[in-house]
C-alpha cells in the first residue's frame, strides 16, 4: 500500500440527505443516507429511475442547493465551507435546462465560462482566450462559433454547453443527463468526449443518464440509486452482486446479468430448443423468446435446427416426421406461433 490512502477522495458523500428546503428549518428529503465517493479523474455514472433524485443529488454536489443533512466533501473540504465564488472555480455544471436567450452566439456562450475569472467588464485576457480556444477544440465546435444558439441541433447545443463548462476550467464537471434528447451517434460522441476529458485531462466527471448500457461502457464507477439504497462500484462489480435488478421494481423489464441489459419480463410457457449453426443461434433464440417460447437444452421436444446453405442460414423444424424449412426468422416465428 502506498500513501495514496492519505489523499482524500475527489468527491466524497457522507450520509448525505438531498432535497428541497420547504421552510427555514424543514426540508423535503428526496433521497437520504447517501454515502458514496469518486476518485480523481474518474468518470462516475449516476443511474436510477425517473424521479428518484438523480438531479437533486447532482445539484447538491454542484452546490446549487444545500445538503439537508450530511456533507459533500470536495478534495476533502466540506462544500459548505466553500464560497460561491470559489465553488465556481471548482465545479462546473451542465444541465438539460434549455437556454433561452435572444441573439446569444455560441462564442459568447462559451466565453461566459470565464465568468469566475474575469473582471467587472468581463474582458478576456490571453489566458482566457487560450482556455476558451482549448475548450472549443476539445469539443470540436469550431464551425458553430458564429452561429446563434437557437440555430443548433440538440446535440450541437449540448456540446456547446459542455464547451462552456470546460472554459470554466474546473477539476470537477457535473452533468445532468447530458445525452437526453440526443440521437444515438450524438450520444456516443458526448460520452466519448467525456471519457476523453476524464482520461486525458484529469477531470472528475459525474453524470446522470438513462442509457445504462452506454454508462456501463464508459463509466469507471456507477452510483446506482435504487429504492432500497445507493450502490456503488465498477459496473462489473455491480453485475456480480446482482443489484441492477433493484433498479426498476414492479416494471415490465428484468435485468439479464449475462447480457448486462434490461429486457422484457416474459411469461414463457412452451419449450423449444435450438441447434445447429452457432452464429445464428443467438438471434434465433431472441426471436423465439419474443414469440413466447422458453429455450431449453432438451432436444426431446420441439427442435429448431439451423443449417448453413452456402452462407445463408436455413431453419428446419421437424414436426411429426415432416421436415419443414424456413429461409427467414420471420417465417419461422410465424409458423411456431401457430403451434399450440
Amino acid at each position, binding site marked *: 500500500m502506498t500513501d495514496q490512502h492519505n489523499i482524500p477522495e475527489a468527491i466524497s458523500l457522507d450520509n448525505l440527505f438531498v432535497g428541497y428546503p420547504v421552510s427555514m428549518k424543514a426540508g423535503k428529503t428526496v433521497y437520504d443516507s447517501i454515502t458514496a465517493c469518486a476518485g480523481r479523474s474518474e468518470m462516475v455514472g449516476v443511474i436510477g429511475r425517473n424521479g428518484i433524485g438523480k438531479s437533486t443529488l447532482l*445539484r447538491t454536489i*454542484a*452546490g*446549487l442547493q444545500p445538503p439537508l443533512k450530511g456533507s459533500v466533501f470536495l478534495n476533502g473540504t466540506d462544500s459548505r465551507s466553500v464560497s*460561491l*465564488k470559489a*465553488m*465556481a*472555480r471548482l*465545479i*462546473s*455544471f451542465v*444541465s438539460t*435546462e*434549455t*437556454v*433561452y*436567450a*435572444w*441573439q*446569444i*452566439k455560441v*462564442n*459568447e*456562450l*462559451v*466565453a*461566459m*465560462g470565464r*465568468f*469566475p475569472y*474575469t473582471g*467587472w*467588464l*468581463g474582458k*478576456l485576457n490571453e489566458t482566457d*482566450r*487560450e482556455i*476558451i*480556444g*482549448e475548450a*472549443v*477544440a476539445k469539443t470540436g465546435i*469550431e464551425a458553430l*462559433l*458564429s452561429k446563434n444558439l*437557437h440555430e443548433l441541433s440538440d446535440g450541437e447545443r449540448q456540446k456547446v454547453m459542455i464547451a462552456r463548462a470546460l472554459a*470554466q476550467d474546473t477539476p470537477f464537471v457535473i452533468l445532468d443527463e447530458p445525452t437526453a434528447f440526443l440521437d444515438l451517434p450524438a450520444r456516443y460522441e458526448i460520452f466519448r468526449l467525456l471519457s476523453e476529458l476524464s482520461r486525458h485531462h484529469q477531470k472528475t466527471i459525474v453524470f446522470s443518464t438513462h442509457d445504462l448500457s452506454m454508462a456501463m461502457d464508459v463509466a469507471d464507477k456507477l452510483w446506482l440509486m435504487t429504492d432500497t439504497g445507493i450502490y456503488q462500484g465498477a459496473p462489473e462489480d455491480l453485475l456480480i452482486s446482482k443489484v441492477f435488478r433493484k433498479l426498476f421494481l414492479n416494471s415490465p423489464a428484468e435485468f439479464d446479468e449475462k447480457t448486462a441489459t434490461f429486457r422484457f419480463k416474459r411469461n414463457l410457457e412452451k419449450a423449444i430448443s435450438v441447434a445447429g449453426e452457432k452464429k445464428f443461434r443467438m438471434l434465433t433464440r431472441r426471436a423465439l423468446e419474443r414469440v413466447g417460447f422458453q429455450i431449453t437444452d432438451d432436444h426431446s421436444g420441439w427442435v429448431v435446427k439451423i443449417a448453413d446453405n452456402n452462407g445463408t442460414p436455413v431453419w428446419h423444424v421437424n414436426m411429426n416426421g415432416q421436415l419443414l424449412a424456413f429461409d427467414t426468422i420471420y417465417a419461422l416465428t410465424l409458423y411456431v406461433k401457430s403451434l399450440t
Partner: protein
Amino acid sequence: MVAPGRSADLFNYKRSLGLLFLMAVLLLLFVLLDLVTGTVKIPMKNLWGVFTGTDTGNPAWHTILFEFRIPKTITAILAGSALSVSGLQMQTIFRNPLAGPDVLGVSAGAGLGVALVVFGMGGFFMSESLTYLGSWVQIVAAWIGAGMVLVLVMAVSVRVRDIMTILILGILFGSAASALVSILQFFSPQSQVKAFVIWTMGNLGSLTGVQLRVLAISLGIGFLLTLSLLKVMNALLLGESYSKSMGVNIKVTRILVFLSTSLLSGSVTAFCGPLAFIGIAVPHLARLLFNTASHYILVPASVLLGSLIMLLADILSQLPPSGMLLPINAVTAMLGIPVVVWVIVYNRRFASIN
C-alpha cells in the same frame, strides 16, 4: 488555436461601437428637432444664437427655450432611457421577452403610490409639489409601489413558469392597483382627480426644475446600479442554475436588479405618468439592431434608442397644427405596440420558458 480564441471575444465591438456612434449622432439631430418644434417655432438657424444669448431678435424665444423646451427635452431623454433600461432588466431577470414596466403592472404600482400621495395627502401635496420634500415624497411612493408589484410578480413567477400566465397576472396586479386608485378618486375632490387624470396621460413638459433635479438624481443612482450589474445580467441569460454555478449570488442580484428597476421605472412614472410600451419595445429593437444578447452593448443601445424614440414621440405629439398636444402616452403606445406584436408573432420560440 488563435482563431477560435479570438472570435470568442464577447462582442463584435467595432460594428457595435460604430452603430452606437451613429445613434448618438441621430440623437443630437433629434434633440435639435425637438428644441425647435412646438406651437412657437424657433427657426433652426436662430437656435444657436438664442441658446448662447447672442440672438435677441425675439426675447420670447429665449424664455421658451430655457423654461420649456430644454427641460422637456432632458426629461424625454431621461424618461426614454430609464424606461428602456428597466424593461431590458426585467426581460432578463424574468427571462421573459414580454416583460416591461407597464406590462407587468409595475407602472400601475408606481401609479398607485403616486395616487396615494396625490389623494391621501392632497392639500399637503398641492402646496408642497414645488419643493424638494414634495417631490421626494412623490417619487419614493412610486418606487415603493413599483417595487411591491415586482416582488409580487417574482413570487408568482417562481411557481408559475409560463410566460403568458405571468403576464396575465401582471395585468391583474395592474388592474388591482388601478381599482384601488379609482376608489381613492371616488373619495377625492374634483381638482385632485383632474390633476391625477392628467398625470395618467403622461407628460414630459410639466416637470418643475426641482422635480427634474430629483428625477435626474434618482435615475443616476438607478443607472449606476445597472452598470454594476452588467456582467451578472449576462450570466443570468443562461438561467439561474448556470449563473449560480458560475458564482452569481442569485438573491443579491435579484434584489439589486429590482432596486434599480424600481428606481428607473418608478421615478419616471412618478413625474411623467405611465408612458406605455417604451420599456418593452426598445430592448427588442436594440437586440434586433445590434444582434447581440450582451448587456454591455444592449444597455447603452437601449439608452440611446429609448431617448431617440421618446424624442420622436414628443415631436410627433406636437404635429397637430392647431397647437394641440397629443397625449404622449398615446404616441408611445402607437410606436411601441407594433414592435410588441412583431415579437409575439415572429418569435414564437420565445413563447415558453420551459
